[in-house]
């Protein structure tokens, strides 16, 4: 077997399967069609009552939601859909027997109000309902399912069993960078020679009234409730926050030689990854942009390329006033003069912010951008922000020569991860 190595002497890591589900639809082809048509998946929330909420819009994946589903169940379903599509495309292993480890970016889950009320209802508490009242009736057998649903280890274990991945499944969170971190862990495992394939999935189906409240209280969400489809406006002067969304994406990562030997189609190469934590503030980036800058530079250095080698930036682009300004500071510092030649667009303008899944979804879109030589737009770009002079691929997809993409993911808690993707090597 040929032994192809990257510039650092490591095994080359290919993408041989991809799957995706977002509020725009299920399946990567349907998503690609809608993304390049500039469609928005944001709608008024119908899954639960929004009385009293400041934000009443979201990119909920209603077309896969089933009545009464807990966040864990929906997130698991989305992961399963994306993973199944990716593995089928890759053709690796056999059904229920994926020959490698599993890295799952997954939202933190917990008991939800419907469950709490169900327990409280049988607690017999008259005056005040305390947790001790709930604990007293907790052993009743009808509540056993709540425990199974809310333990962090359950979904990764269930999916590991379903896909037949090998070893202990790793479920992880690096907030809004989680999807990219899942890919990074798979990449590193293949580079170490521990495995020849890895399954990386980022999934998030956790929109509940309480999650909307939590982000609202941090003033992170757009309140443009009157115009759901126009609410996510990355890089626009009138952007006012991100739009919470759901979705999942999966990537089959594979040693390039292994993939070629079995005749697999190479959908892309994960050439490098960079990360850097920020210790400025829990939710805000360091005003000098240093961590974000280091993160991108680390990624380019890991891939062994220079800023001039990058043709397109798949932005984190959340549509919050702060993120987009910071991302501009970051890319303008890293890319300098060359930035004017690099289109940079935000998938979140159409999909919303899928949080845990975003890094994986945007990696798939990045690979499809290279495969199709077409860049999805940043929609809702009507009022440019003069402080952010970028070619955001406004409102309409564009055909372009794209050999190499960087995909940025930044998150609460100082999380920054950047992926470098390229096409099949010549």
């Amino acid at each position, binding site marked *: 077997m040929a032994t192809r190595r990257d510039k650092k002497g*490591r095994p080359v890591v290919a993408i041989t399967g991809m799957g995706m589900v977002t509020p725009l639809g299920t399946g990567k082809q349907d998503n690609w069609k809608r993304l390049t048509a500039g469609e928005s998946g944001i709608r008024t929330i119908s899954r639960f009552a929004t009385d009293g909420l400041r934000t009443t819009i979201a990119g909920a994946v209603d077309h896969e939601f089933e009545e009464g589903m807990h966040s864990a169940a929906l997130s698991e379903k989305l992961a399963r859909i994306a993973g199944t599509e990716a593995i089928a495309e890759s053709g690796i292993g056999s059904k229920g027997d994926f020959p490698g480890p599993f890295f799952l970016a997954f939202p933190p*889950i917990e008991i939800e109000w419907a469950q709490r009320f169900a327990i409280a209802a049988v607690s017999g508490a008259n005056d005040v309902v305390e947790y001790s009242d709930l604990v007293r009736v907790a052993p009743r057998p009808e509540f056993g399912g709540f425990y199974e649903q809310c333990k962090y280890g*359950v979904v990764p274990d269930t999916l590991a069993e379903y896909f037949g991945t090998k070893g202990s499944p790793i479920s992880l969170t*690096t907030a809004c960078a989680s999807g990219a971190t899942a890919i990074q862990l798979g990449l590193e495992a293949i*580079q170490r020679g521990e495995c020849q394939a890895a399954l990386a999935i980022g999934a998030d189906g956790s929109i509940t*009234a309480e999650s909307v409240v939590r982000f609202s209280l941090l003033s992170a969400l757009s309140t443009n409730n009157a115009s759901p489809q126009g609410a996510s406006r990355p890089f626009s002067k009138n952007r006012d926050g991100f739009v919470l969304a759901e979705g999942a994406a999966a990537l089959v990562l594979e040693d390039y030689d292994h993939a070629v030997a079995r005749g697999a189609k190479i959908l892309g190469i994960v050439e490098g990854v960079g990360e850097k934590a920020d210790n400025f503030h829990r939710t805000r980036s360091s005003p000098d942009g240093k961590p974000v800058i280091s993160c991108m530079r680390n990624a380019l250095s890991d891939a062994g390329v220079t800023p001039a080698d990058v043709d397109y930036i798949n932005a984190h682009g959340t549509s919050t006033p702060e993120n987009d300004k910071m991302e501009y500071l970051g890319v303008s510092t890293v890319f300098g003069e060359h930035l004017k030649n690099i289109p940079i667009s935000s998938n979140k303008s159409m999909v919303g912010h899928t949080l845990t899944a975003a890094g994986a979804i945007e990696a798939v879109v990045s690979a499809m951008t290279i495969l199709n030589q077409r860049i999805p737009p940043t929609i809702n770009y009507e009022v440019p922000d003069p402080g952010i002079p970028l070619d955001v691929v406004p409102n309409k997809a564009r055909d372009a020569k794209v050999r190499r993409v960087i995909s940025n993911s930044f998150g609460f808690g100082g999380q920054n991860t950047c992926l470098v993707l390229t096409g099949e090597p010549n």
Partner: protein
Amino acid sequence: MSTRHEVWITGVGLVTALGEGPEANWTRLKTGESPVFDDKTFSPYITFPNVPINLDTQIPKKGDQRQMETWQRIGVYAAGLALTDAGIAKNTDILDKADMIVAAGGGERDISVDSTIMTEVRKSGKSDAFVNERLMSDLRPTLFLAQLPNLLAGNISLVHGVVGSSRTFMGEESSGVDALRVAHSRIAAGQSDICLVGGAYHGTRWDLVLLFRLGTPLLEAPFKPVWDRGPAGALALGTMGAFVVVESREHAEKRGAKPLARLASLHSSRNLRKPGESETTLREELAAVMPSVKKDKAVVISGASGAEPATSEEKKVLAETGLPVRATATYIGNGMEAQFLANIVLGCQAVREGTLFPPSGSGDHGDATNGISQALVTSVGHWRGEGLALIERVD
């Protein structure tokens, strides 16, 4: 990637029900005293709250302390102890490049807000709207940041300046094993030079007592060691924080750091826990490690949880090794994501001291009379996950 690097543990930090720091924990264990637990707060259930700690020594800014909840404070505190022990606290050159992998669960809810909503919702006509309104008005805006699992790592970055990278793994006991496994693999392969690894768990709180009691027995009086909690088994939730600094031998020697122990190997696996499967998996892991184990110089620090039948299966397999065995959860309770790291710290202390503490319960047996130099640390999770590490004294 073919060059393998030796992986050293060069710093540890630990807070448990027994004490702060490995020495204090070990001293208490060696007295052979009965475990000290709390059987009142969550009566009838037994829990293991941590000993009091002086947060100011590791988290000097009160503002930082206020932005965290208990699980994060304990974790940030224990992480600080480990960085200090490794001699890299405040060393910005090293911390700027240091990696970090944290094993974390979810943060605590606001119990009083929940209780008020559960009480008053019964009088409201539209319960959904009522919940929305109360949450919007009653929740502390920054509470969310104390609930996100990755914000333990985030707070460690903020307070201690570890900023090379930051990853958070979730999933009870296994996540602690996998955090250390990935750090070990990365360092051994040259992908990382130094990494802070750890976890924190605040099990002595109502929302977790509720979650676990929904699906698994919790220990009630009279107290019993983990090995002897009957056919249904039982957990005793604990509060703990445990961190280690692991680095390549080259990196440690270059900065003049001494090893507390070598992290020789690590295994992590899963099965569906059909009868006998834990036994089989653990036996396979042991088979991979035993060729490196010196029979008269090694002990087992068991992470047995008290859940059955997993604990009985582990007892059987460990007895077959002929090595002395001690289970620590009898003394510190169940700390989920932090449990394995706590046992790694205690394992380091075992190989440093070359001795063991008195046995407690039917699975603890043997003694370390010859001066031990190796510790096998197990993690058989209460629900899933079989993990095993070998650590050894560096002579």
